């Protein structure tokens, strides 16, 4: 495609400072040079090239230490004001490979819980900086509340069952839980960010190194998409954690959901933009009924319009969300619940939109839509995986309940 996707799908660049813009440009170059222009080579050698490309992104460019403080050797993106830039980065990475994108989103969502100005935890930041600022690739996996099991009564986070339990009144605390399913990358994680229930059932977050004693992983799951992010169920048997690794402040779990909705939205939108580029090439070059270019047929044009519309709207909504997060008090204080609610609504809507865009676009591509060779099917599988995982349980119902609670003061849903 010979048109600039930024011109086609604009977003408010003025919400990013020069440093953000430069970083986004750098990651766009990585995306174009390393993956987008070498799709076939990348696909055919995916298992080996994924880590090679990710290393260039995370180690050479330095995204792995993006959210670490400058004085700890990081790039110092420790202010929610960077949210528009983080979103743009997630989108650029997602355009290249959604698997790399979700690893970026998981890492940033985890680190953002204790490295930002409003929630800075020096000891935790120092210990994590040691892990993430070296030359080795590191992966963070997030474990959120989700489906509970019939016959057992679980502590809840807004209706979702919390299956990990934090125990102890003093150090060492322990975290336990059976069959915990990370969103992504449980099989390869160096660090787990786990929503747990504290003694009183109150949700909190434990940051648990992947090599801690008592952490056991099942074999890798076979999943619809995101095949480079090997996922596996996790079992925690009295895993010891220090107080510094426990985040108990009010709103921390909501903040985790907020970042995940923003950044995974960015990843999916990026994948959808790549889908658009491939579909656009297809519609330019294919002829139907022996004479008409696909895009010049009114029915096909209306489907193509649907695709572009969904992607454009999802992108704009997500940038609006990033602006809300970046605003004063967006993640702290009385606005935090509102930000969480908007993150849930926009995140859910954006994911639905890009999945619909891809479902519609595939209709026009016929067999090329599901052939691995054309790559659009990978974008489709990856984005559907992100969407379903982000639902947690019960489709859009938990998000609807969160929304109803905020707007109508529902107390029993």
């Amino acid at each position: 495609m010979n048109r600039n996707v930024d011109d086609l799908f604009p977003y408010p660049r003025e919400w990013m400072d020069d440093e953000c813009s430069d970083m986004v440009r750098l990651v766009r170059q990585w995306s174009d040079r390393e993956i987008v222009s070498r799709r076939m080579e990348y696909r055919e050698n995916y298992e080996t090239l994924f880590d090679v490309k990710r290393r260039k992104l995370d180690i050479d460019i330095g995204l792995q230490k993006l959210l670490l403080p400058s004085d700890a050797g990081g790039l110092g993106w420790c202010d929610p004001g960077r949210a528009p830039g983080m979103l743009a980065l997630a989108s650029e990475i997602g355009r290249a490979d959604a698997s790399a994108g979700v690893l970026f989103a998981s890492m940033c969502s985890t680190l953002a819980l204790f490295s930002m100005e409003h929630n800075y935890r020096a000891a935790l930041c120092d210990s994590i900086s040691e892990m993430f600022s070296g030359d080795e690739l590191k992966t963070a996996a997030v474990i959120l509340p989700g489906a509970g099991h019939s016959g057992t009564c679980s502590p809840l986070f807004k209706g979702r069952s919390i299956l990990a339990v934090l125990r102890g009144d003093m150090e060492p605390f322990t975290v336990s839980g059976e069959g915990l399913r990370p969103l992504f990358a449980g099989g390869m994680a160096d660090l787990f960010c786990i929503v747990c229930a504290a003694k009183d059932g109150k949700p909190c977050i434990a940051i648990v190194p992947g090599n801690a004693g008592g952490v056991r992983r099942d074999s890798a799951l076979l999943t619809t998409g995101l095949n480079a992010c090997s996922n596996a169920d996790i079992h925690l048997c009295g895993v010891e954690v220090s107080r510094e690794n426990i985040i108990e402040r009010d709103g921390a779990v909501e903040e985790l959901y907020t970042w995940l909705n923003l950044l995974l939205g960015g990843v999916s939108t990026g994948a959808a933009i790549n889908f658009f580029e491939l579909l656009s090439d297809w519609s330019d070059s294919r002829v139907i009924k022996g004479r008409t270019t696909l895009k010049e047929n009114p029915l096909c044009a209306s489907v193509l319009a649907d695709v572009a519309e969904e992607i454009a709207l999802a992108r704009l909504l997500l940038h609006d969300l990033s602006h809300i997060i970046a605003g004063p008090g967006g993640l702290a204080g009385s606005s935090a619940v509102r930000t969480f609610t908007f993150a849930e609504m926009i995140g859910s809507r954006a994911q639905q939109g890009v999945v619909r865009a891809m479902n519609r676009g595939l209709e026009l591509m016929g067999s090329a839509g599901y052939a691995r060779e054309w790559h659009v099917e990978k974008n489709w599988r990856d984005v559907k995986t992100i969407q379903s995982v982000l639902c947690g349980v019960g489709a859009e119902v938990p998000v609807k309940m969160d929304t109803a609670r905020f707007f109508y003061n529902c107390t029993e849903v």
Partner: protein
Amino acid sequence: MKNIDAFSRPEEYISPFDRHFRRIIRKHLDEWVMPERRRYDEDWKDHRLIGPAFDRLMGGLGLQKALFPQEYGGWGMARSDYLFRLAYMLCEEVGRADTGMGVALTVTFWPLFVILTEPYVNMRLAKEFAPMFCNTQKAVFAANAMTEPQGGADIENLGLLGGRTIRTTARLDGDQWVINGHKLWPTNSGGVSKLFGVPCTTKPGSGDPMDFAFIYVPADLPGVTQGGAYEKAGMSADKNGDIWFEDVRVPSWYRAHGPGRDAEAFYQLISIGQVGSIAFLTGAMMNLYERLLEFVSTRTYNNRPLKENDAVAAVIGRIAGDIDICRILGHEAAMIGDRRNKPYGKPLISEDVVGRIRNIKDFVSDRAVDAFGKAMDVLGHHGPDRNWDIEKHWRDIKIIQLWMGGKQLCQMEAARYFFNCETL
């Protein structure tokens, strides 16, 4: 509801044979396919698991004989008044287990349908090809080599284009047809078929149905080259690839029926193919119900089983409701097919039948895509997990929506019929 068989269907349409046949097929699939199907994706290239499963289903049970006349060793089902409805039942049951396996099995019938069903029967060819399928315990596949690199869905749009865009040529040389061309994507290509039905043109560029030829080509003839199987998003039991025909010679009587009648007999395949597609979809949806029922009964939101939460119940209620409606529609589509030779029916090649059946297929495809997508979201973290089976169906049923011209051609055929469109 007790089980999946309680989903609605017009009982007065159902063959007396249905219950017994269905029980045998389901038992076989539950025993031999269900336990293995989660491993099929990784077997897409070699069919080490899938191949023996086909041998048991097609050769062992004998399904591949079904259409051939009894006098040639077959079951004579092509002559049954219940042909479409029995096909629906078969496709639904196999689709419940694995739609990829379903399409590979039933597309074997596709080229044979052109010569075995009234009013287009060619007994000489039936006798010629019957031993290939009836005298073995091994699976034998056939394919319709239809789609061409430049043509996309044009071949399924025969009503409008009349074969004008076909570039595979058939030239009569003495008592032999000489065939040249390149086809791609047929189900059961990629090296598995023993017999191809090949739509050709005897006059390139002509849109006259008299210049359309449907010719049978055994896969082992000199000049037939098959490429390897493509890697796809799903449907690993169905291999697809390229086929090249280079000066391939077959006896002149390997042409199905002759000028004019070839196009008519071939065009019938649209309707039977769409009915089969609908049945795959409702079969997969019935399995969706089985797996979803287990999940929403054993997993909770707000510490109550998911199915007991009003908002979740609305979502899963819609899914089950759609399955119920789609199954009724599917049986109606099959019944339209089985009325074809009756005084109160219409020929399969009529705009009426094509338009109505394509319309039902389009509707059921949309509902299936929606239901599977929503069901994956109900499972949430577990939605993309292959152990819950729904994600595999989700990948496979999207392919069903896209094949045979996809959604847009269905919409056009429906519009042509219902609004008498003349230029679409």
